[in-house]
């Protein structure tokens, strides 16, 4: 085992599965999903082995291959305490999404192949240690998601998919320019992220411009107000698995980017502009919550809470940028928030998907009293909703607590305002639960079946993690914190 390149195996296992599917040219549902579930399950095992092998702090388990040495580019992958939780989350959510989707009958072979390609791209982004390699995987996520939304989404999916693609492509193209600025200013020129992290090459105006280039890319991806406009349509029109991956994994690429590139490669510029970033994050969090409050479509409601939660996350990163000597609560919390949001929101999207399959509508006005018809579905939704609004002992609480703690140290007024977001989300979730699950049942005929085995296999692991992470966040925090220490945030 010590000689197996586990990182590359994790990245390329899904791609291998996709290629097998392409060669078989099968559109048979059972074979396609058997292959898909098998591949994603193996990937979970591979990432778990990475965790077991240990991540002491700095980049570990590095794998390298030569490629264009004269350009300073190469195939380099490695893992640290910031990327590991996200890698575990990614592997898990793809398995869950694959299981949940096993009912897809429209060209299942292509669907599974695209999901697998997307998994390779997401894992590759989190594990890349080379700017170019990161960029390649980062862009591939767009291609995979574009086809998933456009091909298997709901009514207005083509427009939503193209909007999503163009928005995020614009962002990532600015990312490319920022990367080139980092590359051109490093001496000698290199795309090696470890070198750029150890010695951030930019100063002055160049650093400021690069910072805003990176900011634009990650603000669109995360998304922060006012760059979030692609999100509600994309989330709502995507098939359930697409929403899960989009919210659970791809938004995290934005957060990861803020930490890995903005914070670590242009630290001085980030410190300089942190008040603006935090202000925008604060506004975004409140705006997301208020917008969610105004929704009548329950899937859009969950989508807008993502804007809210990602606002907290960016706020935490901003607080960490301002902290020069103090504690690393903000950053610890931000990483933990990404993981918990991934789990909780994915769980909510799965449950909304199950709800829509049964009632054929997402309009809350047409629903009501579903707790009687579907006690299990309703109970789990309420639990996930409570987690999402930040109830103690559930997943979001420890993350948000740390973010608020970290924020309070550097910006007490903004943090106090940020707390308003918690109140609004509590209100909106309670209202949604009341409108959908309590009260009188609608008159329409509903299929009697509660959650099926397939749905439970996808949802229950997430529920377990919601409770587990709420009660024992230390399991992940230990890994995250070890890296913060290496980074000098103690």
């Amino acid at each position, binding site marked *: 085992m010590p000689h197996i390149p586990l990182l590359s195996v994790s990245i390329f296992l899904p791609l291998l599965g996709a290629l097998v599917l392409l060669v078989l040219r099968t559109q048979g549902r059972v074979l396609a999903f058997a292959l898909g579930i098998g591949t994603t399950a193996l990937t979970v095992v591979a990432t778990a082995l990475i965790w077991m092998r240990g991540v002491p702090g700095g980049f570990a388990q590095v794998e390298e291959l030569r490629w*264009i040495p004269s350009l300073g580019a190469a195939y380099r992958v490695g893992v640290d305490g910031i990327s590991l939780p996200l890698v575990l989350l990614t592997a898990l959510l793809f398995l869950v999404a694959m299981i949940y989707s096993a009912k897809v009958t429209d060209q299942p072979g292509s669907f599974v192949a695209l999901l697998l390609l997307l998994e390779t791209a997401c894992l590759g982004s989190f594990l890349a240690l080379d700017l170019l390699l990161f960029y390649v995987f980062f*862009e*591939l996520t767009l291609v995979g998601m574009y086809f998933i939304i456009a091909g298997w989404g709901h009514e207005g999916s083509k427009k939503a998919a193209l909007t999503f693609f163009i928005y995020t492509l614009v962002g990532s*193209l600015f990312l490319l320019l920022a990367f080139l*600025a980092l590359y051109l200013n490093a001496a000698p020129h290199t795309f090696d992220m470890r070198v750029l992290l150890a010695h951030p090459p930019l100063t002055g105006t160049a650093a400021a411009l690069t910072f805003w280039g990176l900011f634009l890319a990650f603000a669109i991806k995360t998304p922060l107000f006012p760059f979030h406009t692609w999100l509600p349509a994309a989330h709502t029109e995507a098939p359930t698995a697409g929403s899960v991956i989009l919210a659970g994994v791809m938004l995290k690429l934005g957060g990861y980017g803020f930490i890995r590139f903005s914070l670590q490669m242009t630290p001085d510029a980030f410190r300089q502009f942190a008040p603006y970033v935090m202000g925008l994050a604060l506004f975004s969090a409140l705006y997301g919550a208020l917008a969610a409050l105004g929704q009548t479509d329950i899937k859009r409601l969950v989508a807008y809470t993502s804007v809210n939660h990602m606002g907290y996350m960016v706020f935490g990163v901003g607080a960490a940028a301002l902290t020069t000597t103090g504690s690393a609560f903000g950053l610890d919390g931000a990483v933990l928030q990404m993981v918990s949001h991934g789990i909780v929101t994915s769980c909510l999207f799965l449950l909304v998907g199950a709800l829509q399959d049964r009632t054929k509508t997402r309009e809350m006005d047409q629903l009501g009293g579903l707790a009687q018809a579907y006690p299990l579905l309703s109970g789990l939704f309420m639990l996930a909703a409570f987690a999402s609004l930040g109830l103690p002992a559930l997943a979001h609480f420890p993350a948000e607590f740390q973010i608020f703690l970290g924020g309070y140290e550097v910006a007490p007024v903004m943090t106090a305002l940020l707390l308003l977001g918690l109140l609004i989300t509590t209100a909106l979730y309670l209202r949604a639960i009341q409108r959908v699950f309590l009260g009188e049942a609608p008159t329409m005929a509903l299929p009697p079946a509660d959650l099926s085995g397939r749905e439970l296999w996808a949802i229950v692991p997430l529920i377990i993690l919601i409770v587990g992470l709420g009660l024992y966040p230390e399991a992940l925090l230990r890994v995250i914190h070890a890296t913060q220490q290496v980074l000098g945030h103690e």
Partner: protein
Amino acid sequence: MSSGGSMAQDLRLVLPQLIVLLTAMLALVAEMLRWRRAGLTTVAVGLGAATVVSAGRLAVHATAFSGTFRVDLLNHWSVLILCPTAVLCCLLARQELRGTPREGTVYSLLCFGTLGALVLAGSGDMMLLVLGLLMTSLSGFALAAYAKTEAGTEGALKYFIYGTVTTAILIFGLSYWVGITGSTLLSALGQPNLPAPLLAFGFVALLTGLGYAASLFPFHFWTPDTLEGAPVSVAAYLSVVPKIGAFFGLAQVCRSLPSTAVDWPLVLALLAVASMTFGNVLALRQTNVVRLLAYSTVTQAGYFLLPLVGVRGAMALPALVVFAAAYAAMNTGAFAIVLHTGRTLADFKRLGTTRIFTGLAMTVFLFSLVGIPPLAGFTGKLLLFESAMAAGYTWLAVVAVLNSALALAVYSRVIVAMYFAAPGGPAAPPAPAWEIRTVVGACLLATLGLTLAAQFFF
């Protein structure tokens, strides 16, 4: 201005070009004897041999014939890119024009035109620029008119008229350069104290002539009509071979032209912006895929200018070469699929589901044209952006980047038709002929593999 060596050595240095010339003449002989297959075979073997010879001496850097012909990176790679592309275009022509009268002349003309582009790419002398340009455009006129249809004749006429006027302007402008430098050698442009206005005048005239061959805005007027009227195989050729020849020739000039007297990099940067934006905006409205690709070549012409802005930078010429290789592969591939599928967007409806691999290949070519990694077009554009930024033209890179996003909207119209059109539409096209399969396969391999192979360009 000492001669590089003996005549024999000079001839050895231009061996690939001589082989191409010989091949073109042999192909003509084959046509006279009405041996159609033999013509095609001759071209494949001859251009293949030229490619192999060039590949074997990438390390050679010299000049031939008293410095008038440059045997360098641009020259070697022009052979390595254009000769295989010309063979692929001949294969497409075989599939498209088989059995038509004068079929064999197409192969011969393609070879002559390619030779012209190779001469442009190796020019160290103004007269060779003129010679190369005339060779590519004269054979181009004949090729464009091949179809003898109304649209074909109109397109060829436009190509001819714009071509003769712009070439005349080029020759007129170059005559001033000869006048002020007292030499036809490009290297003479480096002399100190040349009068700036005349230097600028010559440069603008040169841009007019080469810009026309390269479909660069605002000299692109002929492009959509000519490509639409010409056979698809000829359109593929016209959009790739003369263009790359012209840009390599322009690079040879820019390498010798000091930017102290005239700020020509700024001129090129502004032209690049105009060409990229104009091509994209007009391509957005096309429903004919050939016209869409025609405006897309105007866009890509703008990208070709990015490395020329900072041509003396270490990465500029490799960037130009990599982008040219990527462009040749993805553009030829896209035209090959148009030849097989049809010219209108309606012909592409549901292609992705009826012909899975053809649809996938087209998607790869289009995404590569947008510049999505890890495809060839991305690697090319990455290097272009890098060389523009290294030259201090970050704003140009920003505009180019925004245009890439616009390009996505252009090419995604074809992708949407292929995958997400409502059921119905045309029946599945028949399985592609072996010629098309070969071309698409070769272009696909290059488009997918160039990123990994990029290290060999440095």
